[in-house]
Structures are given as structure tokens and as C-alpha cells.
């Protein structure tokens, strides 16, 4: 019981869930657990089922793309206050890249199946979750586009 109260409190303190009604936090707390990852450990790998998402409380996580024969390519880093993972929201519920704990990481882990079933039963909860995840997805899409544009590369004159 003490753990649930503590998790409830931590949820309320996390910026991603700011201003959520107590009743919603309580519902979310039922699917959440406290977790920790050692420095230099893998949190999830590309292609694995996306069974959780994480609210980072401490530490640094890199999102990486691996390809055979090459070093892992870091394309984003996440910090305390960030949310890690949205593949759990969309079928086929599989991760699209690796998440690597660059330091010790402390986080709140959410059971994806638990949360999806609660969201299906309670559309208001589902709406709240999407309302918070969609801007995160939008920002990351925009960032990926900017990175794709390779803005700082040596300028190449257009041929006409």
C-alpha cells in the first residue's frame, strides 16, 4: 500500500503528468512501478514488444539505431522529466529503436497492456494520455526531420 501511495505521489510530481486529476493519477498508479537501470544497460531493443513506457526521474537515456558492422548511432538523449517510449500506443506495439541507459536511470515504468485496457474502458483517460503523448511524438518527428535535413553540413549549391 505504501508503495502505491509513493508511486501516486511521484506521478503527481512528474512534469509529463502535471495537472492530472487525482482520480486519474490513482488509475495510472495501478499500472505503474518504480524501476532502475544500471549505467550502460539496455532498457529495450528495436523489434522487441513494447510492453512498457517510462517516465524518467533521474539519469540519461540515449535512443539509438543499430546496424550490422557499425557503431550504434545516437539520435536523441532523454533526461529526467522526459517520457521514454510511445510504441506501446500503436500496433504492432514493438520498439523501433534501442534505448540505452547512459547513466544510472531511475524511472516509473507503466505496464502497457494494463494502461491500454484502462484507456479503452475509460475514453477520458485515453484522451488524456493521447493529449500528452501526441505533442511528444510531434516534437520528435520535427526533430527527426531537422536532423534529416542535415542543416550544418557543408553547403551545396543547387543546380538549375
Amino acid at each position: 500500500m505504501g508503495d502505491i501511495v509513493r508511486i501516486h505521489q511521484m506521478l503527481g510530481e512528474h512534469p509529463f503528468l502535471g495537472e492530472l486529476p487525482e482520480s486519474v493519477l490513482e488509475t495510472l498508479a495501478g499500472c505503474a512501478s518504480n524501476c532502475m537501470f544500471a549505467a550502460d544497460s539496455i532498457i529495450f531493443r528495436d523489434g522487441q514488444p513494447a510492453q512498457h513506457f517510462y517516465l524518467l526521474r533521474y539519469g540519461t537515456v540515449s535512443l539509438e539505431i543499430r546496424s550490422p558492422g557499425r557503431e550504434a548511432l545516437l539520435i536523441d538523449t532523454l533526461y529526467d522529466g522526459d517520457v521514454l517510449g510511445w510504441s506501446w500506443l500503436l500496433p504492432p506495439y514493438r520498439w523501433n529503436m534501442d534505448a540505452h541507459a547512459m547513466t544510472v536511470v531511475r524511472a516509473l515504468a507503466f505496464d502497457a497492456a494494463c494502461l491500454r485496457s484502462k484507456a479503452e474502458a475509460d475514453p477520458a483517460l485515453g484522451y488524456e494520455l493521447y493529449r500528452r503523448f501526441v505533442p511528444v511524438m510531434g516534437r520528435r518527428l520535427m526533430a527527426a526531420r531537422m536532423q534529416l535535413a542535415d542543416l550544418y553540413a557543408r553547403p551545396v549549391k543547387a543546380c538549375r
Partner: protein
Amino acid sequence: MSTAAADPGLWLPRPYRVSRCKRELSDTFTLELLPADGEAMPAFRPGQFNMLYAFGLGEVPISISGDPDAIGPLVHTIRAVGPVTEAMRALQPADEIGVRGPFGSHWPVADAEGMDLVIVAGGVGLAPLRPAIYHALRHRRRYGRVCVFYGARTPDDILFKTELKRWRGEFDMLVEVTVDRATRDWAGKVGVVTRLVEGGGYDPLHTVALMCGPEVMMRYTSRALEARGVARERMYLSLERNMKCAVGLCGHCQFGPHFVCKDGPVFRLDAIESLLAVDEL
């Protein structure tokens, strides 16, 4: 004819000698120059540029990257992207180069006094902003919070790495660096520079923002600043165009109703933002 254009001294390159040539990145270098005639150098303001002349090859506009308050050589940080700048990369100490200037508008460091100063740079865009950073550090008490947000392509492309580390060590300055991509030997941030802007560390209602980098980067940065509450009329950016005469006569750098050499390179965002969306001007 403007006063600047009427001054014959501004048409005639003055010979300078290279006192030091420092490699910064694989394609970027810094030249330190002293007048060949031993006379005093003209004062400049942060954000202004000079026309540098590689004898027999041509002239290029290059922002001054040194400390405006320091007594010492004239400092230019240059990216080798064409025959003139490639030739400048090959210069050795005691070689001569022609210099005209300084020209153009400057960062509003005096108007920003009393405000938080947010400096956002991308790639080699840190060079034209460095004089403003030097100024802010030298007159630190005149400003509120001072934030430097810098984005580079990879860790190997970070300009002025030693200075960024030193500035980060200052207790009264926020310095954040991010790269677009990296491998695991990089322990810093990965992601676009707009994320640093979103992270805050400044009071949006009392902030003056200075930006320099690729125009697309500045466009997104200005949106991120605006989303945080920074007013457009307190955002300034430095534009790069094909400048030739540097005094607003030849028209090479015309940008809508403006000449970048004379009215810029530093503009207030709201004065030019409608033009930034135009493909070709």
C-alpha cells in the same frame, strides 16, 4: 551616397599580416591578423563583418569572431567552402591579406542590458556570436541570465570546444551543447538545438535572443522561443548573403527592401521574417 560608401577607405583593402592560423575543424580555421602598416585597427561591434581579400582571387565577407574589447589581433573564423576561402586556409604566419571594414549592423548588446540574454548558435554560426558572448562575459553584471545554446552536426564539428567548456565552468552562465548525431563515445546531449531552447533557463518575458546558423535552424529556433513566450521583436538573427561591395551599392546581397551588407547582417526578426519564407530573393 551614404557616408560609408563615400569613405574611400572602405573601398580600398588595407594590407594585414597573418599572425596566427589555427585549425578549428576539418574545414574551419581561424585567422588572426595585424595591420601590415603597424597602425591602429578600427574598432568593431559584435556581429559586424569585414571583407577579406585573398590577393588575385577575390573577396569574401567574414564575420569578426574576436573580442571587441580586447587589444590584440583581428580575429576571423572561416569555413573553407570555395576557392577564396580555400586559399585563405593555406595562409601562413607573415602572409598578407587585404581587409576592408568593419561593415554592417551589430548585435544589440547595449539594448539587451538588464535583460536575460539567450544566444542560440548552430554550426559555424557560433563564430559571429562569439564577440557578443565575450561582451556579455566582460560586462556580466549588466545582464540577467546568460544562456548559450549551441547545436552542431556531430561531436567532431563542435566549434570553440575549449571555450565552450570554459564558459560552461562559469557559475553565472548556462551553456548547453547538443549534436544531431553521435556514437557512444559522446556523453553529451543528442538532439536538435530547439530542444535546448525548450528547456528554459531564462525568463521569456525579459529575454533578448540572438541567433546565428542555417536559416532553417533559426526559423525553428524562433518558433521554439516564441512558444516559450519570447516576443519576436526581441529576437535577432544574422543572415548570410552574397555580399560584394559591403556598402549597399552593388545590390548583390539585396534581400527584399534590405541590403544585407548595410542593413544587416544582424536583423530584428520581425523586420525580415516574411522574407525568410521566400525561396529566392
